[in-house]
């Protein structure tokens, strides 16, 4: 009987280990040779919107710019200035700029880094009779001197959790979920 208990514990422990390993995500990339302390001014390009929600990318970008500025670690150019730089370059794709375009843009804007982003999900998800807001963002920081990606991370927040299923409530408001996701991204940037 005692022996049986031991095997059950082992099975539970193995199951938990597999579960925890499955949950862990290593979605942060840092360029090992990059001196992040050298970055002082960055331009945040318009994010790519892969969602059906109109203006989702602009909302997330605006929140991200404000929160990045609020950290006091980096100076972020105002969006109007970024737009001026992009229009000066003519055919500039904010969704997938080439290294050459990044370098040209940085010369116009006088920045050390350029941040691009993709909003992958922004809206309400439904599971059974429960619904909740969800946002999923991925960002990349490009070093303008080398033109390579030096940091990349993603974050997904919100969605229908166990508590939402049990007691309902609809989850957090969209803005709160967005702030949580960006907070996680900033933690990953400054870790």
């Amino acid at each position, binding site marked *: 009987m005692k022996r049986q208990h031991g095997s059950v514990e082992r099975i539970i422990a193995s199951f938990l280990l597999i579960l925890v390993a499955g949950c862990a995500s290593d979605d942060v990339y840092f360029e090992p040779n990059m001196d992040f302390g050298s970055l002082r001014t960055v331009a945040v390009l*318009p994010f790519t919107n892969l969602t059906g929600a109109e*203006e989702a990318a*602009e*909302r997330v970008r*605006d*929140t991200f*710019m*404000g*929160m990045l*500025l*609020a950290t*006091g670690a980096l*100076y*972020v*150019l*105002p*969006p*109007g*200035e*970024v*737009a*001026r730089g992009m*229009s000066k370059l003519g055919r500039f794709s904010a969704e997938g700029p080439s290294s050459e375009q990044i370098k040209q843009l940085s010369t116009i804007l006088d920045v050390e880094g350029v941040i691009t982003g993709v909003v992958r999900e922004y809206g309400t998800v439904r599971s059974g009779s429960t619904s909740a807001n969800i946002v999923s963002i991925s960002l990349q920081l490009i070093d303008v001197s080398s033109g390579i990606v030096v940091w990349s991370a993603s974050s997904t927040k919100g969605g229908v959790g166990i508590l939402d299923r049990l007691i309902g*409530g*609809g989850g957090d408001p969209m*803005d709160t979920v967005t*702030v949580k996701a960006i907070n996680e991204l900033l933690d990953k940037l400054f870790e």
Partner: protein
Amino acid sequence: MNCSTSCSSRTQIACGLLVLLVLPACAATAGKTTPGEGAAARVGSDGSSEIAVVAPVDKSALIAVLPIENLSGGRAPLETIRGLLVSKLRENGFQLLDDEALGEFMQRYRVRNTGGLNAAVSRAIHEETGADAYLATSLEAYRDSDPAIVSLISRLVQDGERSRIVWMDGVSLSAGGHPGFLGLGVVEDPDILLDQATRCLADSLGRSLREAGEPIPAALANSYYACNPRADVVALSSERRGRARHRPRIIFRSPAIRTDRRYSVAVIPFLNLSHRSHAGKITALHFVKHLIRSAQFTVVDPGLLREQLLKYRVVMEAGPSLANAEIISSDNSLGVDLVFSGTVFDYQDAAGIPKVEFSLKIIEGGSRQLVWSSRSHNDGEEGVVFFDVGRIYTAHQLASDMAWGTVEALTR
């Protein structure tokens, strides 16, 4: 989701009982206040300071009432509103430029934008008609049913060599704004709302000029709507506090912003990404309204700003660039220290719960630096504790509170 929609009937009964217990206590306290105890008594009890604001024009000044600017995004009885406003101003004893002379002047100068006058026209209206000031009124929202809503923003601008805003206020009335017991306070007729709204504005202007210079408790600055007493002439004071929930959620403030110096500012119409037409212009007006009450800022009239933006052909697809800000703040243009701009993401006032979301960015023209960035989002039901107490019924009031919260955060 909040208590007003989710409270069970049992909770509502409990809330009602609580109110019944609290109200008599309040009534007893209120009964102790005698008519003789006025503002001075309140000052003595809470130790707050007093404020006196001197209006630069008096009631004998000749005022030109410009046609109403329609920012409602739909059809509205603009002539009727103007007529009501004129009659209410006359009742308050104001001297108004007659319509014929104003019409001739506007035709002569081909004035189409009635939301403000440029420098040349402002000078001309003073020289040719003798008007000392003009009243520019914007109809922010108008709906005649389900429920009826009227929102107006008005400002008095001293014309002549350099236009200067001397008074500005807004009013927003909703049919269901004060439903009262069993909904007896619901106003179904939009004409009644129009009458009340125009009266509020005229009274507010009348008070600001009549009572200018008289000291009042700074604490009264907390009530600032057109229909509330004396709020219109009160500058921001240390006692003036908005609701914490209407302050920005995210703030970046550069150490370059000092609270001990006076800044001249221009507020550019916000970039409008919402579905509500004119939301960017409306939000900018709310900021102007609160900024002119602050002792820390001198605000350039939107009419003059518009002229400069047209003159330099400033196109701002994503807000002002640093070069745009530099142009606006140069001595050849407006010579301002700070350029306010922003983006409106949401301005819901069509039906249901009002919701407003915007961000503000301030660029210092001289240094070409972004010195402030904030983001605000609120809805009208956040303050509801039980039933509909604390509910905000119109986007006008919500946006005004949020602009106030932002200016408050900026000045501290």
